Structure formats: C-alpha cells, structure tokens
C-alpha cells in the first residue's frame, strides 16, 4: 500500500522551476532517502508535502486522501511530521515542555484551558526523550542545549507528533562523526521499533546508501533515478550529476 503519493508536482519561484513534475510514491513501512545536489528541490518538495508551500499544480495524496494545499497544522495532525534542516525549536521552552506540547498538539488537546499541562502526557514525553537519548536534559531550556542536542530535539519534536510518515531534512547537517552514528542508529530504531515510514534527504552518502531501502535522485526539480542503493550507485546519469560534487560517490 502506498502511504504517500505525489503526482506531477510543479512549483516555480519567478522563472525558476524548483519542482518540475515530481512523481514519488512511498510505500507504507519503508525507509527511503532523497538525494540530489544543492538546489535540486529537496527542501521545496518537503515544503509542499507538509503544506508550507502550495504547489502550482499536481497532487499530494496521503493515505488515499488528497492533502494538496492544506495548512501545515492540518497536515501535521493527519500524521506527517517533519524535522527541519536548520534548527527550528522553541528556545525558551524546556526540552520536556516542547515534547509534551508536540504530543498534546497531535492529540488535539491544546485547546484545553484549565488542565495543568505540566502533568499531562508526562510518561509519553519522557519515553520519546528516552528513545532519542535526551532524557537527562529534560528540564533544560531548548536554547541551552548544544548544537548536536538541538538537532536531536528537532527530531524528538517530529517524533512526538506520533507520525505515520516522518520527513527528515538533512538530519546530519553540522554533526560530528560520532553524533552521525548515533542519529543513524536512531533513525533505524524509529523505523523498526515504531513502524514509522521515513523519508529523509541527506548529503552524507555513507548514511544514504547504508540504511535506505530505496533511493530517489532529484536533479533540477525532476526525478532522474530511483531504485535500491546498489542500482543507484551504478547509475550513469547520477554519476554525471554528481561529477565534481565533492566526496559524493
């Protein structure tokens, strides 16, 4: 069964065609990655899936229901959450509060005006923090965390939304090699233990080819190749695109 289906998605900024007819189908329960040189349209694609940008044309279908053009808060409640490429957290909320709030928001409990939030979904929030390894920093303000921990909190926020589809936009950006290993294991754990479907984009090719079941290559707003890692590694067009691109292949 297809969890997410994207059909002929188009988005232009002025004269620049950022997404140029993307088709993408994500099977339920899969662990997928999206690669492509800078400016290939990866983040733009994520922005359209999550409702931050409205596509010029084309459709986004989630669980058989069209979600094109819905607001981010509506899409998030339907089960697609997202971790951002740049750190995007709540600086003056504590780590625990942020995660509690993400759970409460997903459950539609955030309009409750007289319940004590501090004592709500405490166990669930701590469980998420245990999973990502931030339990010890639960009472710290988000802005007091190290860069690496803030990235992990970013992931925890996406995870706390109890997603069926988790979109990760360069989860390893700016991380040390040690932190990369930790986050790689974390993504696999989330995928296996929680049965979450994961679609991530990443520049670290060791990670991409190491854990993805299927890789999709985006170039100038188009899908130029899709298949298992071994196949993508041998693909000539992909080599052409990445030629001269740092340590890529």
């Amino acid at each position, binding site marked *: 069964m297809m969890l997410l289906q994207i059909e002929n998605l188009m988005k232009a900024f002025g004269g620049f065609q950022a997404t140029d007819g993307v088709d993408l189908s994500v099977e339920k329960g899969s662990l997928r990655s999206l690669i492509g040189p800078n400016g290939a349209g990866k983040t733009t694609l994520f922005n359209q899936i*999550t409702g*931050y940008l409205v596509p010029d044309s084309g459709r986004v279908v989630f669980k058989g229901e069209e979600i094109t053009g819905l*607001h*981010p*808060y*509506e899409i*998030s*409640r339907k089960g697609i*959450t*997202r971790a*951002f490429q740049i750190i*995007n*957290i*709540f*600086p*003056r*909320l*504590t780590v625990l*509060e*942020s995660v*509690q*709030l*993400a759970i*409460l*928001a*997903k459950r*539609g*409990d*955030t*309009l*409750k*005006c*007289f*319940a*004590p*939030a*501090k*004592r*709500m979904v*405490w166990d669930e929030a701590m469980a998420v923090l245990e999973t990502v390894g931030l339990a010890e920093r*639960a*009472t*710290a*303000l988000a802005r*007091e965390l190290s860069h690496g921990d803030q990235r992990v909190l970013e992931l925890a*926020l996406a995870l706390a*939304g109890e997603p069926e589809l988790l979109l990760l936009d360069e989860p390893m950006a700016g991380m040390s090699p040690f932190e990369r290993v930790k986050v790689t294991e974390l993504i696999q754990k989330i995928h296996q233990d929680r049965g979450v479907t994961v679609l991530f984009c990443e520049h670290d090719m060791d990670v991409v080819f190491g854990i993805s079941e299927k890789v999709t290559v985006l170039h100038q707003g188009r899908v130029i190749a899709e298949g298992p890692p071994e196949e993508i590694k041998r693909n000539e067009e992909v080599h052409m695109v990445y030629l001269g691109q740092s340590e890529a292949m």
Partner: protein
Amino acid sequence: MAENSKSFWRSGWLWAGLVVLGLVVYPQLVSRYYIVLSTEVVILALLATSYNLIFGYGGMVSFGHAAFFGLGAYAMALLTKNYGYPMLVGLLAAPVVAAACAFVIGWFCMRTIRLYFALLSLAFAQLLYVIVFQWYEFTGGSDGIQGVPRPEILGSYASYYYFGLAITLICMVLMWFIVNSPFGWSLRAIRENTQRSQFLGINDRFYKLIAFTIAGAFAGVAGGLYAQFQKWADPELLFWTTSANPVLMSILGGMFNFVGPSVGAVAFVALREIIKVRTDYWPLVLGVVLLTLVLVLPGGIVGFVVEKARPLISGEKGESQAP
C-alpha cells in the same frame, strides 16, 4: 522528577498564600490614602496581567488594550447608573461586552503581525474612543458617566478595596490556570516559533484570536471595577495613553513571569506618586526609569529577582520559571 515538580507546586501556593495574607491584613495598618491607592493598584494589576496574556505569553504587541478596559467601564456605568441594573449584572456584562469586541477587533488584527498588528490594534481602539467621545446621548460624550453607584455594603474605602482584591484574585487564579494549561503553552510556543508550532499541528491564528478575546474579557472586568472605584467612566479610559500603561507595567515588572505585570503595577503607581509630588513632569522621569530598566534589566524587576534568586534556591535550571 514528578516529586520535584509537586513540591515546587506546593511552595508556589505557599508564597501566593503569604502574599494574599499580606494584602488582606495591610489595609488595617495604613491610612485611607494608601487604601485608595492600593485599590487602584489592584485593579491596574488585573489590567496589566490580562494584557500580558497576549504580550508576554502570546508575543503580540497590542497598543489598543485600553479599548477593552474602557468598554468594561462603560458597560458597568451604563447598566448600573443609566439603566438601574444591580452591580452584579454590570460586572458580568463588562467582560462579555469587552470579549465580544475583542473577538471582532482580533479577527481583523490577526491578519497582520508585529508593527502592523500594533498599529491596527491602536487604530481600532482610537476608533472606539472617538465613538464614545462623540456619542453624547448614549455615553455622555466628554463628560462621561458620573455617579456610578456602589451597593451600600461596598461604600467604604476598605470594603471596596477588599471587593476589588477578591475579584482580581479570582481572575488571577483563572489566568494562572490558563497560562499553565496546554493552551497557555501553545501560546508560548507560537511566540517562540510560530512556524514550528504550525508544524506541530497548532492553528496559530485561531489560538492568538482566542487569547486576544480572553485578555479582552479580563480587561473588561478590570474596567468594570475601575468605573465603580472612581465612580465615573470617562472616554480617557479608552484613550491610547491608557493603552500604554499595561505595556509599561509589563515591561517594568517583567513580561516573562506571571506576577511580573502585577509587580510592575505596584512600581508604576509608586513611582507616579513619589515623583508627582516633586515635579509635574513625572512621565519624563518614568521614561528615563523605563529606558534604564530595559537596558539594564531586560527581564524586568521579577526577571532580575528570579535570575539572582535561582542559584540560591536550588541548582536546578529552567524548571521553575521558564516563561
């Protein structure tokens, strides 16, 4: 961890209890002048705290909060003086009228953010001011409505102080629950990072509109009390200079703390009384004090105290007063 937060909970109530006890006993020890002044402080504290729901917690800078204060005052004055309803009707009508108006104004203002939001809220408030000022037959125009009655039992200065204190405390408790609820946390999250809160599933505009309406309702209560307190509702209560007061009090006391605006109200009135005796230019002196405070104590009086006191109370960080 859970135990920890519980004990903080208890000690928080303990402190609140001590303060309330002090507020109850204190009028027995001072002259009438101070009782009247304290009544004003209590009502202004309610106004400032209601404002801080949207300012400190919601991150919305509104320059039109006086509109709801003034509407509450006129609701009370019109109903009790001109139409002869009992005080309780006025006191219930004040927040209802103010909230209804806040909802409509908020609905328009939520389309804008930051400076545009501030200016639009100011424009709406000034519009209401002009209506109240001009509509002589209904509002009494520039004369306002004089002789707002009080029930006999609230005739004395001390009894009205206690009445105002009781209503204010009830409102404060309600607001305290609101800011510590999932809704209150959502407001903080929207203030901290609107985009991210949307991606968590929070409809930010709707939440801000609700907060704006709630803040308007409590400002309406404060206005109703104020009209009774000074036995007079006048257009000045809706004027933009009145809107500035809760902004100044919140900044003075600390906008990132629940009691900050109340402390700010005390400091504001105290400063005014001290300086007024010595010079006619008290707003000038207040301006200098504010400027200094913003530069030296960006967290306001309470923010400063909490920051200094935190290491003394415990080594724990962030738990207690993350706004």
